[in-house]
Structures are given as structure tokens and as C-alpha cells.
């Protein structure tokens, strides 16, 4: 009997939604785990026999930590020595974990994390402990990476689906960086992505890329939601081309790809960086089924009046068939679709700001 699990990371804790495989009726935990922690990163690792859940939480008092659960969220653990932290010689302290991303299925045990300050972390023990990826930390550009409103962070990690030596990350600000040698060296990969907030709008790096997404069946194609600009690269990130023409706005935070249709991609447009509310004051997910050539708004089950954004990590899919799509809003509502986004049901309302969501049918 399959069970659907939806991790909802909010500004004040973790809620877990549960449903059957139909994903039409959801039960949300009545009280949060990790109370009063900003849960900016959650993860679900379905590669092993038993799913492992992750939470990256930050207490404003007691600092950041990463926990894992092997019983679908009933209990959580961190190793005695802690799971993640800068070595002394790095002369830095972890502020927040922004991303917890298992690698592909043929790299069992490998889990990546992204953090503020901008750093990439790699675990080879299934996400119990993480080590700093020095190649990116020691990059000569690091001193020039800036802080957006959310702090200066690696917020997106996109491991290559077949080549363990290749990983893409996105940071705000800094943009996209890629390694092809397992993390030893990194190059910016922002050609074509605009930085309208800089004197030179076409810099080598320094862009504010809000989110990256890709599909394992088409490894060289990636999508990016930028701080103004929605892009696609068909050559592994060498060149980015706009796919924003059919959208009401090119500003937004999340972008995700359908798990079974590499041409299908979802975004949540906001009016502009100076006006961060949904276009037309409606809660609308936009879907393209042709890799960004055309877009359509999805509305069935979503509010017709809404003035709150969806943050960069608060949209996701599961990998079930038919696929589930999920969004969480800054006014604490979570919506789920079990039919590729055609129709939506409310999972939760009146939670704190939703920062991140991840889902799986297990």
C-alpha cells in the first residue's frame, strides 16, 4: 500500500502531509516538528530500500543543523559530532542550510547540501555527515559573490544524472557554477543570463539565479528562473536562451520539471522584483509542455485572489505516475495536484511562510 509523504518546511517548523497514492485527501501533522526553526531545506532520498527524510533547520537562537529520519518522520537524528559545519581553517560559520539534494541512483550514499554562506557540501554516508567541497569554497570569485535578501547562499544543487563528476549549483548572487571534475574546479556558466541589477547586465558571474531544474533523461538541458528572466540551456549550461515570451512576467523564484515529461516545466510568475506579488493578483502556476515555447496558466483549485509569492524551493514534484505537483505560498497554504497540474487540492492553510516542499509516493 503506497503512501504519499509531503514535507513542508516553513519559517517556524516542519509539517508533514500524508495521503494515499491518489493524493486527493491529505492529513497534515497537527503540530510542527522542529518548532520555531526556519526549515529552509528538506529532502527525500528514495534510492535505498527505505526512504530517508532530511531536514535542514535553523534556530535563531541555537543555530543550524541537519537531521535525518529513517521512519518517515516519526523520529529524527543527528550524529553526536553534528552533521555539517565549517572546518576551523575555513574561518566561517554555517548560517543556514538551503538545499539537501540526493545524487542520482547510481551514486548511492551521495547527498549534496548547499548553504549560506555560499558553500557546497558532499556526503558519502547517505546524508549523515557532510564535508565542505573545497574546490568551490576556495574559488577566487567567492569574495565577489554578493548577498541577496535571503543571504549569500548556494541554494540549488543539480547533480548530473549520469556523470558523478558533474554538478551544477546556483547561488544568489553569483549565478550558476559547474564542475566537471568531481568538485575540484568550478567555472561560471551564466552566458546569456541577465543581471539587470548590475552596471554590466551580461557579466561572467554575479547573476541572481533563483532556481535551476533539469530532467534526468535529457542531461544537457537545464532550466533557470532568474531574478528577471526564465531561461533554457540545451548544451549543459554553456548558453542560456530566454523562454519567457509566453509568460505574464519573467520574474519569480521556483522552476521545476515534470518527472516523466522532460518538455514540461512549471513556474510561478510574480509581477516584478519591485512588486513581488502574483501576476493579476491570482495564484497561478504556469506550465509549458514544449520546453518553454508556450505557457498556460493553471487555475483549477488555486485561489482566484492572492497576493503572496511562492519562494524558490516551495514548488516540487513527486515521481509517481501520474505525477504530483506541489506549491506552498508565503501565507502558509499548500496545494497539491495529482494530474500534472490540471487540478489542485488544498493540503494546508494558515501555516507560517512555506519555504520548501518535497514529496514522494513511497
Amino acid at each position, binding site marked *: 500500500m503506497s503512501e504519499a509523504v509531503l514535507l513542508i518546511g516553513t519559517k517556524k517548523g516542519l509539517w508533514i502531509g500524508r495521503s494515499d497514492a491518489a493524493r486527493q485527501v491529505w492529513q497534515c501533522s497537527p503540530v510542527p516538528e522542529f518548532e520555531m526553526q526556519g526549515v529552509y531545506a528538506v529532502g527525500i532520498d528514495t534510492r535505498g530500500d527505505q526512504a530517508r527524510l532530511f531536514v535542514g533547520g535553523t534556530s*535563531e*537562537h*541555537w543555530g543550524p543543523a541537519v537531521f535525518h529520519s529513517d521512519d518517515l518522520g516519526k523520529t529524527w537524528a543527528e550524529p*553526536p559530532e553534528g552533521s555539517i559545519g565549517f572546518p576551523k581553517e575555513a574561518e566561517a*560559520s554555517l548560517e543556514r542550510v538551503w538545499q539537501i539534494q540526493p545524487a542520482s541512483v547510481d551514486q548511492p550514499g551521495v547527498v549534496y547540501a548547499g548553504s549560506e554562506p555560499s558553500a557546497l557540501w558532499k556526503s558519502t554516508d547517505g546524508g549523515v555527515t557532510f564535508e565542505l567541497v573545497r574546490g568551490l569554497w576556495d574559488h577566487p570569485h567567492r569574495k565577489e559573490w554578493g548577498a541577496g535578501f535571503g543571504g549569500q547562499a548556494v541554494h540549488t544543487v543539480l547533480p548530473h544524472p549520469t556523470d558523478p563528476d558533474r554538478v551544477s549549483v546556483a547561488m544568489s548572487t553569483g549565478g550558476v557554477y559547474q564542475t566537471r571534475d568531481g568538485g575540484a574546479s568550478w567555472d561560471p556558466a551564466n552566458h546569456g543570463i541577465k543581471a539587470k541589477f548590475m552596471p554590466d547586465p551580461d557579466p561572467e558571474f554575479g547573476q541572481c539565479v533563483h532556481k535551476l531544474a533539469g530532467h534526468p533523461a535529457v542531461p544537457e538541458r537545464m532550466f533557470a528562473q532568474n531574478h528577471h528572466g526564465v531561461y533554457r540551456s540545451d548544451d549543459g549550461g554553456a548558453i542560456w536562451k530566454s523562454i519567457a515570451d509566453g509568460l505574464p512576467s519573467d520574474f519569480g523564484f521556483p522552476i521545476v520539471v515534470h518527472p516523466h515529461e522532460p518538455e514540461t516545466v512549471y513556474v510561478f510568475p510574480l509581477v516584478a522584483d519591485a512588486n513581488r506579488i502574483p501576476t493579476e493578483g491570482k495564484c497561478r502556476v504556469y506550465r509549458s509542455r514544449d520546453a518553454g515555447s508556450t505557457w498556460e496558466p493553471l487555475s483549477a483549485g488555486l485561489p482566484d485572489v492572492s497576493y503572496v509569492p511562492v519562494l524558490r524551493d516551495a514548488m516540487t514534484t513527486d515521481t509517481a505516475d501520474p505525477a504530483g505537483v506541489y506549491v506552498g505560498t508565503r501565507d502558509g497554504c499548500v496545494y497539491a495536484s495529482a494530474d500534472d497540474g490540471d487540478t489542485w487540492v488544498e493540503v494546508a492553510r494558515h501555516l507560517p511562510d512555506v519555504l520548501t516542499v518535497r514529496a514522494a509516493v513511497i
Partner: protein
Amino acid sequence: MIAVKLPTVLRPFAGGAEQVEIQADGEATVGSVFAALESQHPALRRRLTDEQGALRRHVNVYLGNDNIRDLSGLDTTLPDGCELLVLPSVAGG
């Protein structure tokens, strides 16, 4: 012996204890006491100080009625037998 009294929220990181006691070797400071927590209660230590050893911004530590930030911070020397009181600051929205 230095006693570190804990708020309720931190007690799970010390096996549920209301306070932990640290045997001071030589002249104890707040910093040396917290460093000594690493072997007994590493998860507790991480919540008081970051990985570089700095006291977390919204953690207050009192020696008597004095916030150690108004004394010498982590370098504040501690007489044997004293108590440190850990309290979360007023923070959060």
C-alpha cells in the same frame, strides 16, 4: 566545578538534565567551560557556540546577574563553584 544551568529547550541535548557540571582544570573561563562540553555534550556545545567557537548571537549567558557580554565574553574568568545560566535572548518574529 562549574555548573551550567540550561533552559528547558536545551535540556534534551544534555540527556534531559537541568544543568551540567564541568570540572575546571586550572583557571576556568566561559570559553573553556563550553569547550569542555564538546566531549560530554557535543550537541549542546553546538547550540551555544558556532563551529569557530563564537557565542551564538541570540544566546545569553549570565554569571550572577551579569551578561558575560558585559564582562569579558568567553574570556570571562569563573571562580570554582560558580553557576552559569544560559537563556535565549528575546528574538524571533
